[in-house]
């Protein structure tokens, strides 16, 4: 599904190299997790894949279902099936959550040559999906993320994911700022979307999210590279011993 080869990325403003040769393959139907200490390049990887400005790819490639991602605009990547659940979802005053969702869904459908969803149909689907995430009518009506609690913002991200039905979902520290109940709710939302044709890349600092969203593969990222790959037990090892042992072992 997602194939990253030898990806090198510089931060434009500081002329600093962040990713120094990332190799990663995420197959359809699987969940991969990336863990790693602060500053190792995890969030940068998610931004580069989704097309945020400010980064220069100096080498390597990233493809989604065989299509080159790095040449596309952010909206084209989204229409191609890539979704990034933001660590810090942006507040947009004056734009209703519902308007935002419907604009996004229909823009993607249009880009894929599909028919746009009617207002009535959209309303029905969004209500259904919102309900399972315990998002009430008020939250749907309010401006995007404005006045939402940390947990509400993350649930709203998952609602967007559920509505857009992407092929490849990247979750950037979705567990940050969540209490235990909210984490369960968000994880249930993610698990409900697990599917043969869909893949997940979960970026997190903590094992506890992975108790809920069980990964097939765990990667450890350090200094712009993936330095170790293993099964779910790798996350447990990090939780118990920190990164020191792994770093020492690789060095």
């Amino acid at each position: 599904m997602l194939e990253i080869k030898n990806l090198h990325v510089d931060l434009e403003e500081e002329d600093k190299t962040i990713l120094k040769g990332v190799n990663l393959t995420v197959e359809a139907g699987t969940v991969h997790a990336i863990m790693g200490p602060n500053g190792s390049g995890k969030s940068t990887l998610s931004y580069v894949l989704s097309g945020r400005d400010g980064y220069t790819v100096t080498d390597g490639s990233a493809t989604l279902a065989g299509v080159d991602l790095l040449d596309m605009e952010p909206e084209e990547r989204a229409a191609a099936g890539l979704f990034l659940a933001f660590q810090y979802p942006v507040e947009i005053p004056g734009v209703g959550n519902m308007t935002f969702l419907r604009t996004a869904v229909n823009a993607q459908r249009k880009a894929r040559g599909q028919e746009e969803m009617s207002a009535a149909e959209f309303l029905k689907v969004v209500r259904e999906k919102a309900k399972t995430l315990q998002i009430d009518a008020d939250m749907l009506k309010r401006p995007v993320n404005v006045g939402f609690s940390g947990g509400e913002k993350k649930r709203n991200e998952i609602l967007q994911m559920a509505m857009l039905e992407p092929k490849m979902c990247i979750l950037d520290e979705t567990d940050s700022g969540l209490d235990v109940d909210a984490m369960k709710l968000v994880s249930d939302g993610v698990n409900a979307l697990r599917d043969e044709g869909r893949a997940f890349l979960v970026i997190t600092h903590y094992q506890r999210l992975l108790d809920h969203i069980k990964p097939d593969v765990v990667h450890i990222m350090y200094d712009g590279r993936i330095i170790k790959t293993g099964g779910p037990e790798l996350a447990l090892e990090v939780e118990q011993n920190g990164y020191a042992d792994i770093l020492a072992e690789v060095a």
Partner: protein
Amino acid sequence: MAQPQAKQTTLEARLGSMALPEGGLWASAAREAALTRLQAIGLPDRRDEYWKFTRPDSLVQAEAPHAALFLNDDEPDSFAAVDRLKLVFVDGVFDAEASDDLTLEGVRIERLAVAAKSDIHWARDLYGVLEGRGQTPVARPLATLNTAYATDGVLIHVTGRPSKPINLVYVHKSEISDAILHHVIKLDPEAEATILENGPAAARFNKVMEVDVAEGARFHHIRTQGRDHERRAATHIFARLGAQSLFKSFTLTANGVMTRNECVIELLGDDAVAHVAGAAMGDGDFHQDDTVFVTHDALRCESRQVFKKVLRNGATGVFQGKILVKPGAQKTDGYQISQALLLDEDSQFLAKPELEIYADDVACSHGSTSGAIDEDALYYLRARGIPRPIATDLLTMSFLAEAVEEIEDEGLRDDINSQLAAWLERRRR
């Protein structure tokens, strides 16, 4: 005070062969008094403190500059979907045929041209009076000129709560028209009315609206100034608020080579509320100026000034807003925000926010910003699959929202929002 020679010359040229309109006792007295005042203050020029950001030349020159007619055939007129009582002025001349019958329960509507002929009229206590009060500490000569020379307008006495808004429709049909209209609106205690205004009005339009809001009365005003690119307008609102009264005014300015909207509000009764808001959208040859002066002279009054401008291709926006809190106006709650969204590097926003406070127990805040589209928000929307032009429009609507939300009525708010969206859509690239 003697005026500099240059001002005298400008005034003489402007007044030229214009004669004061004929009328009965009350109107003639008001007009003559205004002319005397005008001769003392002269017309504005660039040296005047409140005309530093806006060139008054085209507004004071003898002839109205030529303004090509604009065919608005791609969207319905403002408020077309609203049940309203329509009064139509074509280039400043009342069009009886296009207007509705002036009868409406809870309100008495008369034309200035007719009422001015009588010797006694209730408007005597307001016509040129509120305008006159609004001349200190800052002179507003174009309004004084208006009081002296306005040939027509509407006098609206609101005694109850009319069932629908009164819509003043300003049609522009002559490329050289120079229209002067003067409206007076008097709301009795506990009365409530909504006044809508729309249309470019003339090649050059000078309009004054005096509004007297008695105790407990509520006044709503929503206007759109027409899409004609070459039209010019200088408008003034003078409002006086009694205790527990409400005044709300919203203006949409989309296009127009020159617009100066002044609003002068006096909060004279305790617990009164005044909100004045504007959304302006300019592309290219566009100069739009909001000059607002709110005076708090009573206890616990609230005032809000919310002005948002979207500017591109060298358009200019101006905001000069003042909150004056007089001694004793304790517990005043004053708020003022003026913001510009600059969609390119050629556009400019000039702002002069002012607070002058003589009471010690008040809360007044003001802010003024200008900036580009928020890149983080743009990326967020695009990451959801929304193409850049649509995302930019959404964020522009988001930027304007605080001003538009000042409109209480949902239907009218939707009407304005759809006009804003249409303006943006026409410019999508």
